[in-house]
């Protein structure tokens, strides 16, 4: 509920404080919390998908060629993917500015 849309009066707050829109976490662009981002070296990547398994924000998805790519709109830069990658194919690179 970090979004300012959630700041409502008691008359308009949802019934029982329920979240009625499924998957509404997608509305929260958490990518801007990031101070470092993962960069995948496709030379080393074996497409095992461990990054996809471990990513706590489900920011990884598979592209047409079978590589796993991160969605920087949601990646918080936690580095778990880099830590778990069995081939050390992922490097965390500081965000600039």
């Amino acid at each position, binding site marked *: 509920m970090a979004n300012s849309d*959630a*700041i409502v009066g*008691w008359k308009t707050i949802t019934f*029982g404080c*329920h979240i009625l*829109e*499924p998957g509404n976490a997608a509305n929260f662009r958490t990518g801007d919390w990031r101070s470092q981002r993962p960069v995948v070296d496709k030379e080393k990547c074996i497409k095992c998908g461990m990054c996809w398994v471990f990513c706590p924000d489900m920011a990884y998805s598979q592209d047409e060629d079978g590589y796993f790519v991160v969605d920087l709109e949601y990646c918080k830069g936690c580095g778990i993917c880099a830590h778990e990658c069995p081939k050390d194919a992922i490097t965390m690179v500081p965000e600039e500015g």
Partner: protein
Amino acid sequence: MSKRVGIEVSIAIAEAVGLARAEVIPAYPITPQTHIVEHLSEMVANGEVDAEFVPVESEHAAMSCCCGSIAAGARTFTSSSSQGLSLMSEILYIPSTMRLPIVMVVANRAMSAPISIWNDHQDIMVQRDIGWIQTFAENGQEAVDLTLHAFRVAEDRNVSLPMIVNIDGFTLSHVIEPIELPDQEEVDKFLPPFKPRYKLDPRRPISMGPVGIPEVYTEAKVAHDKAMKKAKRYILKAWDEFEEIFGRKYNPVESYRTEDAEVLLVTMGSISETAMTAVDAMRDAGQKVGLLRIRLWRPFPGQEFRKAVGKAKVLAVIDRCLPPGALCGPVGAELRSLFYKIPGAPKIFSFVAGLGGRDVTVERFEEIVDKARAFAKKRPRELYEVIGVREK
């Protein structure tokens, strides 16, 4: 047609829960609630009720399980007492603000220490502010009727709040007495199937129980408070509908021989019956004494109570609870707030009686009325008095 039977009140409550077609019953046994859930588990095992009985490992688990089943849209019932109710405490605040209409019967019992399995209202007063609708039964018939009423009110989509029916442990729960048990057809007429406003359903996913940051927590709690206050209308409406079908009329506050009364006793729960007998005796002796019985405790029916007091000058309020260090018992405090700075307000005197199974007899009520009269002439030093306590 309903049938009049001699039956233990606990068993009759279980029968009522069966007639209400409860679907999930997670419960953990504790004296004096035991017979209610024991009988329900038997009814489920015998196939008399099409429900899931969940023999949980604690009251904390019972209430957690209730939250799950009610959120999934199943009519849910449980029951507890005393320390068991307190073990639920962490969970009890959750279904109320989340608007999940669980129904619970609490067989009221003292809180340890010292260990006491006997009746008073200390267990439920610990849970006074959990935001559940709460009623108190005076006798076995009411225990049954209020249980049915609780399902009707709690599940009303305009209310959608959990509800507790308080019955005095032992003094009601373990007594065999005549009770009109309604039949299935009548109950079905009164109680439509449970159709929640929202439920957890994979076909239409929603989330229940998110975090409430400081910017929304207050609003969530105010929404809950407003829902409680709005609920009164539907509580009364359900009692009207109950009367139409079953012929028994219930009010949030009941008056007994209050006409021209100078002193009014104020009671809650099963001592109200003995209080009526005491009022009869005092009236026979020419005293202008009446009785107000509070049936609806939360939301508190302030308007109805003020009206019921009429022109009486003295209220003798009996609490079955002694909160150490407080100014007076919770019912006394509630009524003092109600009448604060109201012109012509009665003098309110607070008494504590009937703790941990101590009997409140006709003589005790007479003593309370005498003391209230004396206090009206000479203000007492303390805001409450414990009745029948030995000094040495």
